């Protein structure tokens, strides 16, 4: 045992360090956990792990198996696994939409109880730590997240003599000016597909930016006049979007922009570097980055790994799962990703300051991130009932976007009414 290990073990016994797992001797657990199951969605930071997993497997004598699913399916399956007590997954992928529910149901361990101190959790970006924290306790180790960024096609704006919009009104006018469906160039694109993390996520900055509030006292209030106005604006902008936008998910929107079909887009900031990927983007070097036009706020989000209290019950499983979470989100892993050309998923302050990151993305993008930072916050309703409320609202919005429903006020009213039931059931 090294001097450092002896110190950590002694400190943990004395209660100086909070983690039980930190005191678990790696050698004692090596080979005791034959497999470690993790559930995830296919973000680059997850798929990149494949290359380095043998290193982790060798360290612990285990085999990490990552089940990859789409966002909605991943959320549904991990919730099912935890709530039924099945515990098939020791490491779960948590995000801003379900962290409140997972913590209130006690399905995840506090991060400090499972992640070894050597992984320096203080180095995680403050905005992402905030998303991962409930009542002052951090529950997941983020590896991707941030806020929004406003993307625009510099070449098209130059050609049409349109200035970069600074306000929502200017943006609406500019979209109409550059929209050219005959040549398959559309002014705007957005998410239309239902889901709390899909259309609701992109609609929310409009709702909140125009002054909307989720609750009026203890009653849900997202059928207010402000909500109706926000929906009208969102739908008006969708008229200048590629066909099929009513059911677009984020991938459809981003790919349409990368294919050169879209002039303006507000999306999560991780997609900025995707535009500069020479292998997949047709708009490399043609994209400008800025904060979203005012008064739109930036929707803060964060995805990360947590250790499941349902799936990892014994000390060794907790230790291996905790070490996996630390290893997969470590500074070294972010540098590996940068070296492999993945600059989108950055969760550590040290990486943002690194020369490798500055070389990987345009300076204009970094500046946009810095300028947007102060406007970034968690805009969704912070409630364990949010997944249900958000999904119901998403269905309503999709119905409005695709023309199944016409009465905005009435449709939002139905969603709000259903939200009241969901909140009531919590009590």
């Amino acid at each position, binding site marked *: 045992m090294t001097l450092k290990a002896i110190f950590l073990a002694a400190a943990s016994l004395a209660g100086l360090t909070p983690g039980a797992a930190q005191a678990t001797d790696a050698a004692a657990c090596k080979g005791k956990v034959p497999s470690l199951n993790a559930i995830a969605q296919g973000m680059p930071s997850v798929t990149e792990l494949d290359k380095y997993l043998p290193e982790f497997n060798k360290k612990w004598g285990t085999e990490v198996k990552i089940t990859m699913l789409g966002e909605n399916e991943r959320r549904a399956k991990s919730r*099912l696994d935890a709530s039924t007590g099945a515990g098939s997954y020791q490491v779960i992928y948590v995000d801003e939409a379900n962290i409140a529910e997972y913590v209130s*149901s006690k399905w995840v361990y506090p991060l400090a109880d499972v992640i070894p101190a050597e992984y320096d959790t203080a180095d995680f970006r403050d905005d992402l730590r905030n998303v991962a924290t409930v009542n002052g306790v951090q529950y997941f180790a983020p590896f991707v997240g941030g806020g929004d960024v406003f993307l625009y096609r510099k070449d098209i704006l130059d050609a049409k003599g349109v200035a970069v919009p600074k306000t929502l009104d200017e943006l609406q006018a500019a979209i109409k000016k550059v929209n050219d469906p005959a040549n398959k160039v559309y002014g705007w694109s957005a998410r239309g597909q239902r889901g709390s993390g899909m259309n609701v996520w992109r609609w929310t900055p409009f709702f909140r930016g125009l002054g909307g509030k989720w609750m009026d006292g203890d009653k849900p209030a997202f059928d207010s006049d402000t909500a109706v106005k926000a929906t009208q604006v969102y739908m008006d902008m969708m008229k200048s979007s590629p066909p099929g936008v*009513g059911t677009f998910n984020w991938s459809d929107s981003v790919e349409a922009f990368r294919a050169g079909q879209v002039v303006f887009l507000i999306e999560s900031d991780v997609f900025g570097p995707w535009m500069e990927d020479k292998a997949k983007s047709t708009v490399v070097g043609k994209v400008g980055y800025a904060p979203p036009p005012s008064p739109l706020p930036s929707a803060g989000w964060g995805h990360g790994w947590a250790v499941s209290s349902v799936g990892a019950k014994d000390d060794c499983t907790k230790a291996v799962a905790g070490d996996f979470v630390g290893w997969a989100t470590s500074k070294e892993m972010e540098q590996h990703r940068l070296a492999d050309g993945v600059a989108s998923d950055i969760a550590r302050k040290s990486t943002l300051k690194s020369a490798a990151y500055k070389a990987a993305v345009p300076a204009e993008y970094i500046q946009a991130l810095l300028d947007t930072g102060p406007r970034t916050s968690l805009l969704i309703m912070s409630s364990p009932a949010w997944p249900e409320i958000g999904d119901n609202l998403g269905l309503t919005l999709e119905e409005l976007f695709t023309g199944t429903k016409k009465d905005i006020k009435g449709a939002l009213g139905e969603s709000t009414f259903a939200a009241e039931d969901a909140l009531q059931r919590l009590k």
Partner: protein
Amino acid sequence: MSRQRFVFATLAPAIAILAAIALASTAGAVWFSLMNRTLRSPAYKFVGIYNFERLFRDPRFYNALEISALWEMITVVGALAVATALAVLTVETVKSALWRNVISFAFLAPVLLPRVAAAFIWRFLYSPSLGLVNYLIGLTGAGPVEFLADPHLALYAVAAVDIWQWGLFFAVILMKLLETLPREPLEAAMLDHASRWEIHAYITLPMLRGPIVSLALVKAVESLRSFDLIFVMTGGGPGVSTETLDLYAYQVGVNLGGRISYASAMAILLLIVTNVIFAIVWRRVKTWTV
């Protein structure tokens, strides 16, 4: 050991296992349907038939019921119509055995494709801005058509993929059945100067009524299990325009607050409705096939 005992002894274990699996899951669903269990909390209590009562007041449930019935009708009728047309056309126009086998192999390919893979491929093919189907429509000067984003079109667009998979597969079966029919009635009809199409309409296809009804039943059961195809292609949308009962049960039980008891009540109702319908159909099959 007598033959009867031998048959019983060899069949009993398999039947017991099947019965145990079916009964345990059905009993579990019935139990949950009488509780107010959600996935969020381990606490629950007995609520009697409240979940069933609520279902009968739930407009989204009626919509799902309607979509499920429509889906069954479109996919069963569509698959059989396509299969019959292609089988007759192939038998009439392709005389070489080798080419018929090549065509049969090509017709079998779609059904060999996993449903999820087929769904992703067609989701991309249907894309209004990047898909091949809209590219071809664009060449005619029309479109783009929002196949999966138009609430009036989406169900038919997804059903077309189902028919593409199963209609072509059934075409191979019908083609092989047509080849095995006795020649005498056909030759008699030809002597009476019946046209090729009259021969099929009045002789060959009626002779195949039994197998066609069987295929219809197989397809009807299969169509009830189209969750994966619809889920990947539309997720039940736009809105609820492609939301079948199993999709709604999934949304309620897993996505929307994890109301597992409510979803179980829906599953039990679906079980009852389908069993009743299939029992009626099964009794009528004998009449149709005579």
